[in-house]
């Protein structure tokens, strides 16, 4: 089970940026278990092509916010394509949680102020 920790910058940035993008309205302490199907972008009645498009746009937006607004860089050996593909893979899974998304993000991004 992925950890949800207020001292983890990946958890903080994932939650705060999804909140700012209106994807979720829950406070941090209640957000670790929020499933992807409960986020604003996840349309349960749309076709798989639509879900793919929505997930890709959200993953791209999160990526530019992490790097250009939050000051993050990619971890050693990680490319934008990999980071984005990893996010999309989690976003498309209805039962994955925000903690799962933060875990994948943590593995690909080194956030501003994060110790290696």
């Amino acid at each position, binding site marked *: 089970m992925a950890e949800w920790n207020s001292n983890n910058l990946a958890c903080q940035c994932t939650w705060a940026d999804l909140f700012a993008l209106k994807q979720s*309205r829950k*406070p941090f302490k209640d957000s670790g278990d929020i499933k992807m199907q409960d986020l*604003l972008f996840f349309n349960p009645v749309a076709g798989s092509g639509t879900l793919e*498009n929505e997930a890709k746009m959200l993953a*791209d937006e999160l990526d530019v916010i992490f790097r250009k607004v939050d000051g993050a860089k990619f971890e050693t050996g990680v490319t934008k394509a990999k980071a984005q593909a990893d996010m999309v*893979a989690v976003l498309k899974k209805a039962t994955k949680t925000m903690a799962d998304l933060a875990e994948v993000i943590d593995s690909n991004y080194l956030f*501003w102020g994060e110790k290696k």
Partner: protein
Amino acid sequence: MKKLFVLFILCPLFQMKGYCQDEEATKKDLHWLLDQIKSVTSTAEDLNFDEIKKKVIKNPDLYNLIWDHFINTDKVKDKVVFLRDLNFQFKTFQDADSSITGLGFGYDWNLNFTREHETASTRGGFAFGLKANGNVAFKKEINPYDFLSTDLNVGLYRFMGGVSGVHDSVFFNRRNALRQQLVDMTTTEEILKSDAYAEFVGSMKLSNQYMIDFKLTGSLESNQDFSKKQYAYGMQLNLGAKAWNDNNALALLNVFDYPFVVTRWLTKTDESFTPYGATIPTVQFSIDYVKPQQDNDRKVFAGNLDGYTRFHFETGFRTLVADIKGQTIFFNAGFRYYKEFKAPAAVKAVKLDKFSYFVASITSNSGLFVSYSNGKLPFDAKNDAVYELGFNYNF
């Protein structure tokens, strides 16, 4: 089948030994495996091979546990790269009258290679993808009536916008401080009304984001025993636009969201009276030339196995209706359209040359939902559902 079963149990153990030379870890995993097998039999005294075969061989949960424990781990995936993109699950299938059940598996594999470039405001590149998905029962007579699909695609994509501005270490440190304040807040209302949140969002300088994604595609579609098979070659275009800042003019064009601006305002979910730019729908268009290879049904019905051109369009819309007392209520809608061009008269006569399917639902995070649907999907798109609704009231 017995040999396959034994092989399946032993193979992960040999693989595991390959990546982990620790003898203690090996013993620990063996004990774990025996515990899992015992958990599906009644008592330890029943643990003989026939008992295992009867109670375990049709248990997909046990196989999935084994798969997750031995194969679906970072250690193995680091060595076998393609496993990272493979979703594999054992399942139970049953025939239409539920008289025969049996084990099988479902798979969904997405492999992508990308070469990309980035400027101050755009991200784009060239992408190659391989996708395979389907469901297969080990007993032929209970194979599900859906298609196995294997696709290759190659194309170009571009994302534009999203945020603006260039920032420095002072800015990033301030962002971290604001975020820490927000993380410590305990209610949504407290967050939304705080000066910290206003500064946090304002500093992001969210802007409009656009996506354009064009692919050439080639696919093989078949049923599970390949008695029906067709190749499809075509093109696909995906377009998207999001106004992440609701104050941008693009957000005002999201006409689908206006009824829900009212519901959110009336329920005091939002204080402002503006539509959400984040819910502007994306669209997908595709056009394929389909060449049936083996399809006795189509040959009898249409008189031949000539190739045909098919068009597909899909879009979807989801937005927040209200957030009341812990209940988050969404409106969801999806529309799909399929058309076969120059269909044979026999196909047109029974209206199988075009399909449209519209579905709308209201869902809440507590599980309650109501849905309405109209139309039908073509046979090979019936399983193209993001997730299935449990129960619904049809109006």
